[in-house]
């Protein structure tokens, strides 16, 4: 069902180039406006709540959280092993999957063994990464997304465009149309009415589902616990009602102890939605015990590698510290300009996606992602675990050059530039030639009001500049000339 298009949007043909989807976003003002206003509002809210709560303590807390995460990643083998042991001690089962196909096979096998027909699923990026819903449906298990945004995206056979707020690219009319068409209800644009329709439809699914699938916000190595943070309560229902609960989780979700959790709980909701805490924080430790009146009888964890161990071994392992709060997406001016996540052609979008996707899915497959950033640093500033995302874009760009993914023209241009800048004579010659060239260009252009000091059309490689900006002519006298005449001669002449 939903997945032909989903596959197409978030799992496009490789190598993936952003161009067409940037054009599409440029043509779709409504989508860009929706994404811009929602993310900008969240970004403002995030800054406010941090200022009102931790204020000047915030940088120290970020560093502490980053330190805990770095410690986990440095000792990931130990903590994964410990986590698995603890889960088994509680009566749960842990499965290890090297890639997403394997993870899906394990999940389908569990569903089959239980005779599951209906599965309720809470929001999880890692299941998106694995395209789990497609494989479950192919195996004959009806699988329903229960997060409201994901539910509407699923009804529309669309794909999520933000890691926290999946239907950020859709408005209430799209939601109303999807429900009218797929659920045969009366069309409405009222968010409360639409929510009520979804509630009653999904309640029935929760009640009769025999399989519940969740992701994980955190895994606690010491106790074998799963931590889930949601606002709607859908995760709680998905993993309480059905007889079997399957958890999909990337290996980077593990943290050492329960006592480390408050760092992340206090950061996650503030960063993601501007709340102090999500409405529901579930800590689940094992399947139902004999003294428990309710809860699933079976609990399975499927721990997924899918390229993460390679990232772990690289000098970019810091990226695995991400807690998927979405703050960097909300802060990113590029994310807004391209109308949200679909332009990234991958499940993880925004700054973290642009850094992580090339590492998980091949640098050669995503040549644009490391490049499409002005390196403004808003993402680094927003990140509650202090991931220096611009630094990672630069590292990836460097790797692109080393692997010759960057074209020869650009490589040659930089070599020449570096060469000319290293020599005083060449530099002076170069800048004088530049002035002359620009002078020639300007004399051929009759500027607005005959203004000779502006350039409106430029040749390659500056052509793109003149698409939307003019270029002022350089000053008549260079700084070096001024310095020489007014302040005497500098050391190197």
């Amino acid at each position, binding site marked *: 069902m939903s997945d032909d298009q989903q596959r197409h949007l978030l799992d496009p043909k490789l190598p993936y180039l952003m161009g067409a989807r*940037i*054009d599409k976003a*440029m043509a779709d003002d409504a989508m*860009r406006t929706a994404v*811009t206003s929602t993310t*900008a509002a969240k970004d403002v809210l995030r800054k406010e709540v941090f200022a009102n709560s931790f204020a000047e303590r915030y940088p120290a807390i970020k560093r502490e959280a980053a330190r805990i995460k770095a410690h986990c990643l440095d000792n990931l083998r130990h903590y994964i092993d410990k986590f698995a042991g603890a889960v088994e001690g509680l009566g749960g089962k842990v499965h290890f999957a090297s890639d997403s196909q394997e993870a899906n096979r394990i999940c389908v096998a569990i569903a089959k063994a239980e005779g599951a027909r209906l599965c309720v699923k809470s929001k999880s990026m890692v299941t998106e990464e694995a395209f789990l819903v497609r494989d479950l449906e192919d195996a004959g298990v009806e699988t329903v997304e229960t997060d409201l945004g994901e539910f509407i995206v699923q009804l529309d056979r669309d794909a999520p465009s933000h890691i926290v707020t999946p239907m950020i690219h859709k408005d209430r009319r799209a939601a109303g149309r999807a429900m009218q068409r797929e659920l045969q209800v009366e069309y409405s644009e009222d968010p409360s009415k639409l929510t009520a329709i979804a509630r009653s439809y999904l309640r029935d699914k929760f009640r009769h589902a025999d399989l519940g699938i969740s992701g994980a916000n955190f895994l606690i190595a010491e106790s074998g616990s799963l931590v889930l943070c949601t606002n709607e309560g859908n995760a709680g229902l998905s993993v309480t009602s059905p007889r079997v609960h399957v958890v999909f989780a990337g290996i980077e979700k593990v943290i050492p102890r329960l006592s480390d959790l408050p760092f992340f709980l206090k950061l996650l909701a503030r960063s993601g939605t501007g709340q102090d805490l999500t409405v529901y924080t579930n800590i689940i430790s094992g399947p139902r015990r004999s003294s428990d009146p309710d809860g699933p009888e079976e609990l399975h964890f499927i721990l997924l590698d899918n390229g993460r161990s390679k990232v772990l071994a690289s000098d970019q392992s810091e990226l695995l510290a991400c807690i998927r709060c979405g703050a960097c997406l909300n802060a990113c*001016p*590029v994310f*807004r*300009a*391209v109308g949200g996540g679909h332009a990234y052609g991958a499940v993880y979008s925004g700054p973290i996606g642009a850094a992580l996707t090339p590492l998980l899915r091949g640098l050669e497959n995503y040549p644009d992602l490391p*490049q*499409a*950033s*002005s*390196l*403004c*640093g*808003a993402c*680094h*500033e927003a990140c509650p675990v202090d991931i220096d995302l611009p630094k990672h874009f*630069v*590292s*990836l*760009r*460097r*790797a*692109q*050059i080393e692997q010759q993914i*960057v074209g020869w023209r*650009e*490589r040659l241009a*930089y*070599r020449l*530039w*570096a060469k000319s*800048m*290293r020599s005083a004579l060449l530099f002076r010659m170069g800048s004088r030639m530049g002035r002359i060239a620009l002078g020639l260009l300007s004399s051929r252009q009759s500027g*607005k009001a005959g203004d000779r*000091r*502006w350039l*409106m059309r430029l040749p390659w*490689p*500056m052509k*793109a*500049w003149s*698409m*939307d*900006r*003019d*270029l*002022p002519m350089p*000053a*008549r006298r260079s700084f070096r000339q001024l310095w020489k005449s007014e302040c005497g001669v500098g*050391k*190197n002449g």
Partner: protein
Amino acid sequence: MFNNGFHPEASSLARRMVGVFDGFEYVVTNSASCAAMVREKFPDLFSQDSPDAEAARALAAKTFEFIEFLDRVLALKPEDLGIPWQGVATYHPSCHLRSLGSDPCPSYLAGVDGLDIRPMDKASDCCGFGGTFALKYPKISSTMVREKLASIERTGADFLISNDAGCSLSLLGACHRRGLPIRTLSYAEILAEGLGLLAPDEAQA
């Protein structure tokens, strides 16, 4: 060059620059991005205990953005300067200030007599320049600059103050294309004009 991943080329340039400024007490630049590059990135271009790295760290330690220099080295108090300069302006903080730490510019601007500062709602948003980013992804870049200009226009300011050559060039060019009568200038220019060192039109030439 560094930002585009050309690290061997960047380190050869850094080596030259370290040499050029060897022997000077301070290096002051009127562009936050340049200061950030020298301070944050130069030392990492060389292996940790090489003499090059040592020299790069020395350069980093003596390099300042212009206002930082007024603030931290000369310890000039904004209110003491009391320079006169008439105008309605808005201020764009360069993204590179994020890595340089706190931004003393707003308090210096507050100390200018006659200057009416109107804060913009999207002050911390990037102007869309990003060096070669603007050339490689012109559509994304121009969407960003458009958002920024809209925010600038909402303030009703006649002047845009920015202490980063890249941002100024990009915003000035975009204003000119749209025929907006907004002049960009840096705090150094306000200071120079206020002190009578620079005639207002000379700065634009």
